[in-house]
């Protein structure tokens, strides 16, 4: 509740500043005049501007008081001059606040000043200054607001947000004054200013178009930064509001297009020409202004909601489109390819029907038919079942700890049907209507983590799989999801060799936290972006010779950018002592949580000695199962060199839901 008041105060302040930019812009665009009606309009708009600046200053003071109450921790501070002075004078935000409100006071003064339109230089200077100050007040505010709330946002996103705000001010803030001018000039008494109004609307139409283009580009950048994906757009409250905003914007564009068609009718020399068109246009612009206000309301609601990118989307359809299944099904690939080509032909036909008026009906029918045929061919191949939680992000990260916990649960709840190794060959599975899925098969990696979560929690009735809601808690079900992802990844990893395949990072290496003696816990994840990891799962005594070889080359490996991390396969906590004094081994030998790392990485290889090479983006790139398969040190350094030479920067694997 209290948070809502703060947001409302900021919203009023922002709206007033946006309106001021519009007022300053329309006065500047309209230009000087000596016609009585137009002069009266100038005075009225300037008066509205004064009210707006008063509103901006008052809401600004309110937000300063709000800030003081927040900082001091009690509501009384909002009315305590001492606390207010502290916030204004001793914080960086306060300094920006002082500067902005000085600008707003100056702006109000310029809007109050009587400007003689016959003095060309004075008029230009005063109006240009008004526009400059309004832009400054809005831009500075946006900059300060973003700098305060941005969480590591790129500068480009910040600049784009500010440009978006300024362009919206230029367009939305100018609409109401423009509608007023057109209405006055459309009245019988306003005949003296009709040419002036026509000129103004022409100029505004050019500027408005430019502002609209700017809004489109910066809006796309902002949407990408805040939403970022189709599920987030469709399935989150903020994404839904963005769709509403776009729908209102489409209506605005339709109204604006109708208005533009009226422009030629305004170009009459005589005072009577164009009057009905002018009144119609005034009504259209007023509708546009109302729609702009509606957009402002939607934006205010959007600001109050958490960013769609960080919210968990709810998928509302029973299917989703993805090309993932095509990788394993050549027949479906051909179908999808033919279908998509037919659909493209349909699109060409649709475009042709727009261009070629005489054959519009035939071409339109052909477009519809081709589109339908293409859809029927392609869609079944790329549409797969989806559930409300399909795009939910795992609540438990993909780590060795979670996977090891998942394996313990799997042995109790899943192995009876799916088999100890996940092959779908458990004894209880034989009696089911449909054989249990082979969890090692590549298809498991095509489902999202959310899909797997849904099947575990709700079961698959037709196949005889029971729901586990109630029997397992949410965290346990996510542990199972992580285990199944690891099993699928382990199946995929059979294709990996001791040498890397350049530029093909595909399998995410499960994160693992580890400790060496009484030192703080570290994790594979913190090596990302910095070091390559050579994870060595070892068993004594057969691994001793290899560990000694790596110890001898430790310096070279470190210089090459690789960190060796040795984990005893039996999960013991006294690995360092058992290795003994000879040879001297200085790379980390894991003592804490070696068990869960060994359990997880044993899914990928059952050999007593296995080496895993994890690139600096967190992807598993090479697996050498068995001490005999391990690369000699010079070859190993060569592979590390090839990883270092890679240019490709793949997305971080944890965000890449399989």
């Amino acid at each position: 509740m209290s948070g809502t008041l703060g947001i409302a105060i900021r919203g009023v302040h922002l709206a007033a500043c946006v309106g001021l930019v519009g007022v300053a812009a329309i006065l500047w665009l309209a230009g000087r005049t000596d016609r009585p009606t137009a002069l009266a309009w100038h005075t009225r708009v300037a008066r509205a501007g004064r009210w707006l600046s008063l509103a901006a200053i008052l809401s600004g003071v309110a937000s300063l008081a709000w800030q003081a109450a927040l900082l001091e921790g009690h509501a009384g501070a909002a009315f305590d001059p001492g606390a207010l002075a502290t916030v204004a004078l001793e914080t960086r935000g306060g300094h920006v606040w002082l500067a902005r409100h000085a600008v707003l006071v100056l702006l109000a003064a310029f809007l109050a000043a009587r400007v003689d339109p016959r003095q060309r230089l004075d008029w230009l200077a005063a109006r240009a200054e008004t526009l400059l100050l309004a832009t400054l007040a809005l831009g500075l505010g946006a900059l300060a607001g973003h700098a305060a709330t941005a969480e590591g946002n790129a500068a480009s996103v910040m600049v784009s947000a500010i440009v978006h705000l300024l362009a919206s001010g230029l367009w939305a803030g100018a609409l109401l004054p423009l509608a007023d001018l057109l209405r006055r000039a459309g009245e019988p008494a306003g005949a003296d200013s009709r040419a002036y109004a026509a000129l103004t609307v022409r100029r505004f139409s050019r500027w408005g178009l430019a502002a609209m283009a700017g809004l489109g580009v910066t809006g796309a950048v902002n949407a990408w930064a805040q939403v970022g994906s189709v599920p987030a757009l469709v399935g989150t409250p903020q994404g839904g509001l963005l769709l509403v905003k776009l729908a209102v914007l489409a209506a605005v564009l339709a109204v604006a297009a109708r208005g533009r068609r009226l422009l030629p009718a305004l170009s009459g020399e005589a005072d009577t020409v164009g009057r009905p068109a002018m009144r119609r246009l005034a009504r259209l612009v007023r509708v546009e202004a109302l729609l702009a206000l509606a957009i402002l309301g939607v934006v205010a609601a959007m600001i109050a909601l958490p960013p769609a990118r960080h919210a968990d989307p709810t998928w509302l359809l029973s299917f989703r489109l993805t090309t993932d299944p095509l990788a394993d099904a050549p027949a479906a690939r051909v179908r999808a390819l033919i279908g998509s080509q037919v659909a493209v032909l349909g699109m060409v036909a649709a475009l042709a029907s727009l261009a070629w008026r005489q054959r519009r009906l035939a071409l339109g029918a052909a477009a519809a038919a081709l589109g339908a045929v293409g859809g029927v061919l392609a869609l079944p191949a790329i549409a797969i079942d989806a559930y409300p939680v399909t795009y939910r992000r795992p609540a438990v990260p993909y780590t060795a700890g979670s996977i090891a916990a998942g394996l313990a649960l799997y042995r109790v709840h899943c192995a009876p049907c799916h088999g100890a190794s996940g092959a779908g060959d458990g004894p209880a599975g034989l009696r089911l209507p449909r054989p249990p899925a082979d969890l090692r098969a590549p298809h498991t990696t095509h489902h999202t983590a959310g899909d797997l979560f849904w099947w575990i929690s709700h079961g698959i009735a037709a196949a005889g799989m029971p729901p586990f809601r109630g029997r397992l808690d949410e965290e346990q079900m996510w542990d199972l999801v992580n285990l199944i992802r690891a099993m699928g990844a382990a199946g995929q990893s059979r294709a990996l060799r001791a040498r890397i395949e350049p530029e093909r990072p595909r399998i995410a290496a499960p994160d693992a936290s580890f400790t060496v003696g009484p030192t703080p816990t570290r994790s594979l994840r913190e090596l990302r972006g910095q070091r390559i990891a050579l994870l060595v799962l070892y068993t004594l005594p057969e691994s001793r010779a290899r560990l000694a070889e790596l110890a001898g080359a430790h310096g070279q490996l470190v210089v090459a950018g690789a960190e060796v991390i040795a984990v005893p396969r039996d999960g013991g906590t006294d690995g360092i002592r058992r290795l003994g004094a000879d040879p001297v081994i200085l790379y980390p030998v894991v003592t804490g949580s070696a068990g869960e790392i060994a359990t997880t990485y044993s899914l990928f290889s059952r050999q007593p000695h296995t080496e895993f090479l994890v690139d600096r983006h967190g992807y598993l790139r090479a697996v050498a199962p068995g001490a005999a398969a391990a690369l000699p040190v010079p070859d190993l350094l060569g592979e590390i060199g090839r990883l270092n030479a890679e240019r490709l920067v793949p997305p971080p694997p944890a965000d890449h839901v399989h």
Partner: protein
Amino acid sequence: MALWKAVLLVNLALVFGVTAGWVRWGREAAALRRELAAAPAAVAGLEREFRGEGVVRAVLGEAGVLVITHGDIAGYMPPMTMGFRAAAPALLDGVEVGDSVRFVLRGAIPHLQIVALERTP
């Protein structure tokens, strides 16, 4: 006074204000940098004492050096594996690879020596 002159004055004031702010900010940052640079110099040359905890990775008896994978040594060094010289050879008696130890370092940076060592379970 003509309005355009007022506008000119206002803009000059704006530019002046921005420049003054810029300069002041720069001065503040420079002063901070100087303070930061001066801090380690003031510390060097003083005899100091640090405490650490770690696991023994190698005992180089003839050199009197203990290689320890240690946690954060507050005020001196982040976690890493490195060798420390023992002040007396007797300190290394009975210490084996794999032992968890608590140790005390004393000396002027960077010439620190282990002056006390105890094994922890």
